[in-house]
């Protein structure tokens, strides 16, 4: 036959046999039917030719063309079926590859899981370190106090040993072992009462003069300068102490001198001055935000560098150029008891990506993916804090992000402390961290720029600090001397022996608890000091309480056993 009948590729046939899907089976079925038709058609052609009288020798010719045609079609069908099988096999192979890849991908789930829990583990480590440090700090404090107590006791013991031979006099004929008994104490109070009262009055008068001087100085400086909130609060505390002393119930053991002391504290105007000082402190806190001042100052210095178009972000070098103290102060103010900033390396860590600088807990407090929404939720409206750094704002962990997050955190903290951050003034101060807007609006109103205000405030603060500290020191010295005298007059003991401040000692001996303790042991015979301590402990005084422990010590010392 001249017709070229193609033979199917062996590999294709193998694939066809292996795959065996419906498509291949359809070709196989078609081939079977075609072969059956070929046989039937050839037989019919020969039979019909014979019926027409065709000689037997020529009968084969009648079906020759027919067979050729069928053979070509069958071969073509075989090839098509094999191709279909190969195609199916390739598809199966691709699917198998895909399934294998998915199986391998399952192996990556462990890494995904690790990535999920890594922040939790990191935060846990952070918290545990903090807890451990807090605990260690508490233990260190207790142990340091123990060492101090031991040193003080050793010192006292050594002193007592040194005085043993020559001391002991001065207490009158009935004294023994250099200590006063109850009778001696009463006698001394009677005999020396007039002169002691006179001295106390003189001291009180001097204290009143000093206090007036201090108040005058404070009034002057308060009118011309701005104190830090801490200073104002300290002044308020002192004034409050004076008021409390005035209102205290008198103790029978300190009656003469306490009245003089109270008279000194109770000069007209002391209470109103204390109120004024507290009010001033409150105004100071609400109108002059310490965070804003430090922040404005730091950012004022950062702005010129940041505005340089050649610097897309503040580099560690730039930060170092700003001065560690200013940025350290900024962060100290922003985060209160947060991590201190002491070196350029610390600053790098804060701004350049150590995730613990702003702790994970703090990071979760702010959704930085939408800082504007966070800001609006806090302050009502206005632009979120921004720093004029061209470009690169999409890069997380830059100084821009850190500052913006810090500003939002400071707003949250202020709000938690009771400030109204929706007030335009506060909001403005917080949001315009660049200081540019602040400067423009402030100078337009005839005011100072942020930098000028900070500089002026800083100078005034330093001046006020100096004056205030000096005056306060003088006043405190006088008042404390008076308190020491009052304590010694009442108890016959040296206040220096005790760890408490003179005002605390006066407060202690004026307390009903002290009175009750003294009454519990007075007029009885005691074998030794231990017996007195045990008796006081039985009367519900606790050694674990520093206040009550001091009462026990003073009463035991007064009993002179």
């Amino acid at each position, binding site marked *: 036959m001249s017709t070229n009948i193609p033979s199917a590729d062996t590999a294709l046939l193998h694939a066809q046999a292996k795959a065996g899907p*419906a498509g*291949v089976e*359809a*070709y196989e079925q*078609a081939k079977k039917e*075609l072969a059956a*038709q070929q046989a039937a*058609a050839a037989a*019919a*052609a020969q039979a*019909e030719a014979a019926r*027409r009288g*065709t000689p037997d020798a*020529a009968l084969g*010719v*009648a*079906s020759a*063309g*027919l067979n050729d*045609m*069928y053979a070509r*079609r069958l071969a073509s*069908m075989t090839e*098509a*079926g094999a191709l*279909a099988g190969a195609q*199916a096999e390739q598809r199966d192979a691709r699917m198998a590859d895909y*399934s294998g890849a998915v199986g391998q991908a*399952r192996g990556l*789930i*462990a890494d*995904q899981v690790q990535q*999920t*829990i890594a922040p*939790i*583990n990191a935060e*846990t480590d952070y*918290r*545990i370190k903090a*807890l*451990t440090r807090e*605990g*260690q700090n*508490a*233990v260190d404090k*207790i*142990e340091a106090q*123990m060492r101090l*107590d031991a040193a003080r*006791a050793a010192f*006292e*013991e050594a002193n007592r040993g040194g005085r043993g031979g020559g001391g002991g006099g001065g207490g009158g004929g009935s004294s023994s072992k250099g200590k006063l008994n109850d009778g001696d104490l009463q006698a001394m109070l009677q005999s020396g009462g007039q002169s002691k009262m006179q001295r106390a009055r003189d001291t009180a008068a001097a204290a009143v003069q000093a206090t007036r001087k201090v108040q005058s100085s404070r009034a002057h400086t308060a009118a011309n300068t701005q104190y830090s909130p801490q200073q104002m609060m300290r002044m308020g505390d002192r004034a409050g102490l004076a008021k409390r002393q005035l209102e205290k119930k008198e103790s029978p053991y300190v009656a003469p001198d306490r009245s003089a002391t109270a008279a000194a504290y109770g000069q007209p105007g002391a209470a109103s001055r204390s109120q004024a000082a507290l009010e001033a402190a409150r105004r100071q806190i609400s109108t002059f935000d310490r965070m804003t001042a430090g922040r404005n100052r730091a950012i004022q210095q950062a702005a010129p560098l940041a505005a340089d178009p050649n610097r897309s972000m503040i580099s560690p070098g730039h930060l170092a150029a700003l001065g560690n103290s200013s940025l350290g102060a900024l962060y100290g103010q922003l985060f209160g008891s947060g991590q201190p900033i002491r070196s350029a390396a610390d600053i790098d860590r804060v701004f350049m990506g150590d995730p613990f600088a702003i702790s994970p807990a703090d990071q979760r407090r702010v959704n930085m993916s939408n800082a504007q929404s966070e800001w609006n939720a806090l302050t009502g409206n206005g632009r979120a804090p921004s720093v004029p750094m061209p470009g690169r704002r999409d890069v997380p962990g830059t100084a821009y992000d850190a500052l913006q997050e810090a500003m939002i955190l400071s707003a949250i903290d202020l709000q938690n402390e009771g400030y109204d951050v929706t007030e335009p003034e506060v909001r403005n101060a917080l949001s315009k961290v660049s200081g540019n807007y602040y400067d423009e609006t402030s100078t337009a109103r005839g005011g100072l720029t942020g930098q000028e205000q900070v500089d002026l405030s800083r100078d005034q603060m330093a001046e006020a600090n100096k004056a205030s500290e000096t005056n306060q020191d003088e006043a405190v010295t006088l008042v404390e001397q008076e308190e020491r005298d009052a304590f010694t007059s009442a108890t016959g003991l040296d206040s220096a*022996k005790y*760890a408490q401040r003179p005002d605390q000692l006066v407060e202690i001996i004026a307390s009903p608890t002290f009175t009750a303790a003294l009454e519990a042991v007075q007029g009885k015979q005691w074998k030794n*000091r231990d017996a007195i301590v045990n008796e006081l402990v039985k009367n519900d005084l606790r*050694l*674990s309480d520093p206040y009550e*422990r001091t009462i*026990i010590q003073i009463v*035991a010392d007064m009993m002179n056993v």
Partner: protein
Amino acid sequence: MAEPDNSMTSLLSRFGVDYADAPAPTPATLAFMRGLGLSLDTMTAAKDKQVARIKDRTTSRMGDIDVANERTKTNMLGDLVRRGVLRSGESNTRYGQQAENVARQKSDALRAQAEGIDQAEFGFNTGADSLRTRALETVLGAETSQAQQAAALKAQEDSYKRQDEAAELSYQRSKEAEERALKAQEDFLKRGLGI
């Protein structure tokens, strides 16, 4: 210990997907898999209907070819008899050509049927593969998500436990230190020393 839940593995095997130790089904994954099963059933029914239609058309076509063949041969026979050339070379040639025509038409019909069925099968398999990939992706995502959630819960639990232990340890240490300090202070006090 609870028996492992193999329902998802069984469900996946229906799609021809081998995924041992598949994660436990959630309402969302179950609904998704049921949806895929529904799609697979619909595709199977559509393919079967298409194959049946192709076979039916082929059968009709074969019948038509036979009828036309008989008609042509009758006409041809009349012509050859009328002209008195029934036993001749022409007669053999014309019958042979007619037989070849019929064979060509029938083989074409059979070829078309096979190709149609193959095409329907190919379309079905392509769709089924698509369903398999979606099933795999979904179950892989569910497994990842479940593993992450379980690990996060465990890590959080461990975190609380560790923090609790650290806090307790700190408390115990400070308590011990405080007791030592109290004892020392008591000693000082009984010795008449200032503290």
